[in-house]
């Protein structure tokens, strides 16, 4: 049953990947930029430039370039970086865990604080605190991630000296990368102090990412709860003698969770986009940092591969959200 529900989604995701790859590939080649020119050494001649252009296949028609690239993808090859002269696949693979860890932490923080905020706002409905909450969430949602990032550095890093803001872990706590996920690696290495240090390094960038998600979740959850709380089944639960807390946790919250879940799925995609600036600001060695470096140097093979991985990340999260939806809403399984 679940498989029958997933299969169409997987096919749609696959089509989306192909479409995005074509779009990114074609658009990058329409932009007025010269990746080979960017990587020429001093003293290079026009002949050198032409030779390098040929070497990277950039002199071929766009359709042929795409087909070659696509064939490479099927073999698990993403091409060679013009700037770094390294295979793009291993390069991307080495940085994805850092971004995935950051996005996961940001999602977790945003969701936890969002749900907490939603419950608080629901609890203080029709009181003066409700207005205060609305203003607060408006402020939180209207400030972009990078401003939170810089503000967090100034407040907690420079002024209070409370939190680190450079990289993923202090130099003395570096552990061998077994999974690429620092929290896991420090645990696997049996280094609790390094684990705590990795958590501390994650705090500011993850907060900067998650802080824009939290108020949205808060608002959606609050309004969903306000809608659900007047439904007949909730009244029935009250008549059965359940306390308000029991009514909320056992009945209202479960039903109000569906729109919130949808929102989290959509926002997760934006969160991937937010990693670009946040990673640069915190010196976080992830996909966003690599992408920004690649854009600055016009490194087309890296840009198109990174864009594809971002696309896959968003689709993966959407798939997980869809599955969660199926789990929470049995009616969808019947369709």
């Amino acid at each position, binding site marked *: 049953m679940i498989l029958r529900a997933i299969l169409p989604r997987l096919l749609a995701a696959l089509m989306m990947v192909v479409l995005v790859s074509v779009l990114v590939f074609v658009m990058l080649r329409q932009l007025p930029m010269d990746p080979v*020119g960017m990587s020429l050494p001093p003293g290079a001649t026009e002949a050198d430039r032409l030779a390098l252009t040929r070497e990277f296949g950039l002199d071929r028609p766009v359709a042929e370039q795409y087909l070659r690239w696509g064939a490479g993808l099927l073999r698990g090859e993403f091409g060679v970086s013009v700037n770094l002269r390294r295979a793009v696949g291993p390069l991307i693979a080495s940085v994805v865990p850092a971004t995935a860890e950051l996005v996961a932490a940001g999602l977790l923080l945003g969701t936890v604080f969002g749900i907490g905020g939603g419950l608080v706002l629901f609890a203080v409905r029709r009181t003066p605190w409700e207005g205060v909450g609305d203003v607060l969430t408006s402020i939180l949602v209207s400030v972009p991630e990078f401003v939170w990032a810089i503000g967090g*550095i100034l407040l907690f890093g420079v002024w209070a000296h409370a939190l680190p803001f450079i990289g993923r872990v202090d130099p003395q706590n570096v552990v061998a990368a077994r999974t690429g996920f620092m929290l896991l690696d420090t645990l696997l290495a049996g280094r609790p102090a390094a684990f705590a240090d990795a958590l501390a390094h994650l705090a500011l960038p993850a907060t900067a990412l998650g802080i824009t998600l939290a108020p949205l979740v808060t608002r959606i959850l609050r309004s969903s709860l306000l809608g659900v709380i007047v439904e007949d089944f909730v009244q029935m639960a009250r008549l059965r003698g359940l306390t308000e807390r029991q009514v909320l946790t056992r009945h209202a919250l479960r039903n109000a969770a569906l729109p919130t879940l949808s929102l989290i799925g959509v926002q997760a995609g934006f969160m991937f986009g937010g990693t670009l600036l946040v990673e640069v600001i*915190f010196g976080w060695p992830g996909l966003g940092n690599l992408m920004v470096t690649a854009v600055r140097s016009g490194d087309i093979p890296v840009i198109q591969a990174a864009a594809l991985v971002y696309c896959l990340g968003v689709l993966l999260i959407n798939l997980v959200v869809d599955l969660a939806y199926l789990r929470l809403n049995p009616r969808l399984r019947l369709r």
Partner: protein
Amino acid sequence: MTPNLTRRDMGRLLAGAGLASLLPGRVLAQTADTLSIAYPGDVPVWDPNLRTHVVGHSLFKCVFDQPLTYTPDLKLSPAIVTAWQASPDGKTLELTLRDDVSFHNGDRLTAEDFRYTFFERPHAEKLDTTGIWRRVSDIEVASPTRAIMRFSDAMPSAIPWLSFLASFVVPKKYMTSVGRDGFIARPVGSGPYRLASYQQNARIGLEAFDGYWDGAPAYKQVTFEILNDVSSRTAAIESRRVGLSSDISVREANRLGQDPQLKASVEPFTDIYVLQVGNTGGFTDSRVRLAAHHAIDKVAISRALFGGVAKPIAVPAAHGTPGYPEDFDFPFDAARAAALVKEAGFSAEKPVDVTFFTTNGTFPGDYDLSRVIVQMWGRIGIRARLETIEFVQYQERLRAGTLPEATMYRWGNMTGDPELYSGYLLNPKFPFAAWKSPDVSARLDPLFVETDPEKRFAGYREFNKWAVLQGYAIPLLQGVTTSVYRRTVGFVPYANGWIRPSAYKPG
């Protein structure tokens, strides 16, 4: 006694542990012989011959050695090579190497490694050094400490190139045994530091090499924190999480320099800001080009944007370098500029229209500098339409020959050699030249093969003056290099902008 923990207690403990881990409240450990540096970029890859990479050069220089080097005041200085002698025809260069240089793995550095680096590798692999050393027809290994470079054509710039980008000696035996990928994973050089740990785009951990021929560095452990964002580098030194931060804004450097625990170094260096001129539109008339140059008050711009530190330049070279004619000036003269524009048939009321490309943030102050120039031009009758472009667009326009009348650019040259300034920047035979006219090549070609250093330098000084008087380039200012550091660091500024922790001594 058996602890009697409830689920609630466990929850509290976990929450407490989580919060405690989030609030470590400490600053990175910095002992007397350790140094953390916030740095604006990473190496492209740990093969120092593969790419010419300006930002990565200081990092490579920690791990690898160059045949020749520069002193802080830009004097060419022996390194692995102690003596050199070029033949009169410039086709042979005899080099004497030190006999006490070891690689980090214990192998002795010899002339075989030199031959491998500058002849065998460039001919066998696709490296940036392939193009640089294309004129090397052979390198004879006369003895372990004597190498003779032979050139198909004279290469007078070979000496500066031996201390320039990508010219780092690599160990032949080790590299051929582990292969390029193995080398990149575990690089071995003969520099003052060995690579201890590396996380791309994040952190480089270095340990002092006790067997270094020039003496072990005073800082035993050096960590480069790669922070691309300038505000993060500023915060890193302000919070004392690093001992030194390089390349921050002049304004922030001066502010932090007021801190009693910190010092700021704000110095002009060998990079130059220059307006690349295109022979198109309004600038096809030499009078308009010269007027555009006369109209720029470089001293005022330096004072307003760089605290007066950026030295105004009259030719495309830095002051104190061999190609800079110190007796030449191209003065700010608004009246003369207005007269030239009038002579060309324009005025403030009937201005000549030009397009002006600039990047915004690629080079420090690039956009502000361009805006000020547009204002100055407006007063004398040159109406510039300022367009912001990305650096990659600049490269594409340069390649396609579609740059407009003026384009803001900052040209880097850590050797100070004139060929690496105007020799490449203005020569239409190279892809970096915006102005294309045959008279330039006719004057530059002889200088590319002139083997007498004095004649060569004099020739470039004359060429630079001539090029500016033709209006083929509008040189503006020297760049400014900034570093802020703890007072105990013993920082040494280099006139070419190098960051060299091996030269610093804690104190």
